[in-house]
């Protein structure tokens, strides 16, 4: 019985203009987005690899470890495979970092880059599913019950010996399938596009993540479809249903997720950059003043010193300088850590506010599954700092071992050789860890799906069919 009803529902949907439009939109948008983003990713990957060697040879030309320490090596933001599907935090101008003796490096934006990408949201799979498909889900479901009631066919249907629960279940299954199947086709086509390109190395774990992301997308579509069905059961007329759903869509998919970060800034403010820098300056001012005073005191005495004493004094000051650097680093790190704790809290607040919207939960889940989300950003910055420590250690060791040579000002080290310099490598983030981090969002989607379907189910059982 269920099967017959679902098949009937599916067949009626299939014959409608809106199915044709929805299905073709779904496939078309999916393919276009993957196609365009694939070209973007390939270009980024080529850039990344050629830049890597360019940066390396630039560093080799420095000729002295001092220069290396001061001017540093550049590191580009590694392109993420998943940005063909979920662009996420990759939508930024901050592309390259300089690793030098500054021990808190970060990716920075070049002033001469093209900012036009930032004016519009990127049309990636995230956008296609979160915004377009959730609207299509409303479009497919708004008259599922309300329309039949208006036309009178609902009365006819229920005059047969069909239980209401089977009927509503069949409506859900039939309607959902007519939405999920085009999406699966679009997903399969994008998988094909990805695997057809040799330049995008999707590995086993990436395909697993792809699979999970697909399941999460299907979950979101289920949630939105259930909401549509619920409104369709409750509404008297299908025109009322579609209008209410459109308003709901605007709020759930367009406004709530976007307002989150701004609301969080009001609710749980973090100090501005200027304030952070001020705090750091205050904390370190005492330290460096003391150091400077030491120089001044010594400078006066130096005139009356013998050569040996002077050398001794210089050594002492160098030591003091190192100690100062360590103390300044510690103080700065403390301030930054405190700031970052507050920022994490703010992000958490923003997430909690926006999770009311299933679309936001979906975005958080899929960006982190695809390693293009907030988690990735944090890991990237941490990785960069770790690399800076490695780099600093390496340069210090080399400087100590180096025999020096050349002049003081523009001096070159005769044995300058950085073949064994460490390379920046982002540590792998296991899929299971990523999933564990986003379990709340996925759970929430499941709960939403069940909740709204149950609400639709119960309402339909008690609905007045005339």
């Amino acid at each position, binding site marked *: 019985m269920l099967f017959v009803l679902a098949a009937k529902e599916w067949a009626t949907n299939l014959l409608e203009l809106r199915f044709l439009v929805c299905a073709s939109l779904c496939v078309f948008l999916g393919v276009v987005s993957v196609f365009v983003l694939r070209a973007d990713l390939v270009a980024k990957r080529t*850039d990344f690899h050629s830049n890597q060697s360019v940066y390396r040879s630039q560093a080799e030309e420095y000729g002295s470890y001092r220069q290396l320490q001061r001017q540093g090596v550049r590191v580009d933001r590694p392109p993420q495979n998943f940005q063909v599907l979920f662009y996420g935090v990759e939508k930024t101008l901050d592309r390259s970092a300089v690793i030098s003796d500054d021990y808190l490096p970060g990716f920075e934006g070049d*002033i001469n880059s093209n900012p*036009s990408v930032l*004016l519009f949201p990127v049309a990636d799979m995230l956008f296609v599913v979160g915004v377009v498909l959730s609207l299509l889900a409303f479009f497919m479901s708004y008259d599922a019950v309300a329309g039949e009631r208006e036309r009178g066919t609902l009365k006819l249907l229920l005059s047969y010996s069909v239980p209401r629960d089977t009927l509503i279940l069949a409506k859900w299954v039939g309607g959902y399938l007519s939405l999920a199947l085009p999406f699966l086709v679009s997903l399969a086509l994008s998988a094909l596009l990805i695997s057809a390109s040799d330049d995008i190395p999707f590995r086993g774990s990436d395909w697993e993540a792809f699979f999970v992301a697909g399941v999460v997308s299907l979950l979101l579509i289920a949630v939105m479809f259930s909401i549509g069905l619920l409104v369709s059961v409750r509404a008297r007329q299908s025109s009322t249903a579609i209008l209410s759903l459109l308003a709901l869509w605007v709020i759930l998919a367009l406004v709530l997720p976007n307002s*989150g970060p701004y609301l969080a800034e009001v609710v749980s403010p973090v100090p501005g950059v*200027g*304030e952070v820098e001020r705090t750091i300056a205050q904390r370190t001012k005492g330290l460096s003043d003391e150091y400077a005073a030491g120089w001044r005191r010594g400078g006066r005495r130096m005139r009356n010193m013998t050569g040996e004493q002077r050398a001794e004094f210089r050594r002492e000051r160098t030591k003091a300088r190192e100690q100062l650097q360590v103390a300044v680093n510690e103080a700065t790190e403390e301030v930054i850590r405190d700031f970052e704790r507050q920022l994490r809290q703010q992000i958490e607040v923003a997430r909690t506010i926006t999770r009311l919207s299933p679309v936001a939960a979906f975005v958080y889940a899929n960006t982190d599954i695809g390693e293009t989300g907030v988690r990735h950003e944090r890991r990237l910055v941490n990785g960069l700092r770790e690399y800076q420590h490695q780099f600093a250690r390496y340069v210090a060791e080399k400087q100590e071992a180096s025999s020096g040579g050349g002049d003081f000002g523009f001096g070159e080290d005769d044995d300058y050789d950085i073949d064994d310099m460490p390379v920046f490598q982002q540590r792998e983030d296991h899929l299971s860890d990523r999933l564990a981090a986003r379990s709340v969002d996925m759970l929430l989607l499941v709960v939403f799906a069940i909740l709204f379907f149950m609400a639709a189910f119960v309402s339909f059982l008690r609905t007045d069919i005339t």
Partner: protein
Amino acid sequence: MLALLIAKELRSHLLSYRFVLTLLLFFVLIVSSVEMLALNYDRQATNYAETKRSQEEALKEATDFRSLQWRGIKVEKPPNPMSVFAMGLEREMSRSVKVSRFEDAKLGRSKYANPLFALFPAPDLLYIVNIVGSLLALLFAFDAICGEQENGTLKLVMAYSVPRHLVLLAKWIGGYLALILPFFASVFTALLFAQLTTSLSLSASDWTAFLGLMAVAVLYMSVFYALAMWISVLTHRSSTSLVLNFLVWVILVLLVPNTAPMAARAMSPVPSPGVIAGQRQAIQRSIWREAWRDIRQAPREDRAALREEIQARIRSETDKVMIDYLQKVDSQISTGVMLARLSPSASYVYATAGLAGSGLTEFTGLREYIGRYRTEFLDKVQQLTDERNREAEGVTDQEERQEIRDAPIDPDDLPAFAPVRPRLADNLVDLQTDLLILLVLNAVFFLGAYSGFLRYDLMK
């Protein structure tokens, strides 16, 4: 006659569910968005003033003037009150910029930024009008003709002695008024509320820009209104019209502008900025390395001139690289803009962001201003250093000499970092393409609806 028809149209809209919904949506969205972003602006303005004050204090206290040109100073653009309505690139533009002799200016402070902002576009007025406004315009007009045809009332109206063009015009005016009135009411309330509760205040030129903003919004929504009307004339069932409208909307508003910049990046590639920076460094290094010997061998008094000459050579060589590179960037930007203009939504975004001072032109302007400011700042520092050196020459005591050279500086002596926003008149020149596109589309769609309606088959 026309007035009567318009009044009837308006009345029937005012009583409908969609009018209530539109009113509510516009009201809630616009008021909360403006208020939220105004609060944000408030914080930014306080932060900016605070940072600026402490930077000036630090300058006044600093006792190592000589290192200023290496250490550089941090400058920041004051926050733009118009960004409350159109965020655009404001977030990227208001980062603090370090200006120093040896480093290029970076638009950087990302290591302290909240990455969530990258995930979603800003929910500003621009976004609401761009997406929600266009959608509502479609909803108001999708059944203008075919809905009445379905109900049979169209036949009834035409049985009276009213010319068809008047009916269509009345429908256009009446329906559009019903859409635009809630919009204006919401914007007005939002503005009032934000001005009362936050420190948001607009200057005279800001008000003009704001009026321009409203005008572009009205023009943009009417494009979609006319388009929906045309589609409703072409179809005979309102459900078909709705689906078609929706299809067109997704493509025009969601697909074209969002894909265009990406497509432009693939179509006209640009080398990455890091490579260019490296190239410039390499040029600098190689010229210095060649010239190093000459300088050392030259007699002491010629060295300064020689240095100057080398600097000039480096500048001209690196400028060549930069000009070439910037040309590529500009051509990529204009490719993206041209592609995106296939959709009126992009024209709307460009025009609005331009009017609000947070668009692409302003970004380029800021980039150029930072370059100019850097030269100005370094020249000034050099001049001050020279003055102090001259002053110190006569002093015999070494410590005193050092004190004169390193004395703290009055912040007012340094050039002020104050990028000027382009005037509205200059802006209009840039905006005219977008305005023209919107106007032409309005005319085309309305004429399409008009000629379609004149041959509309009432009996079908």
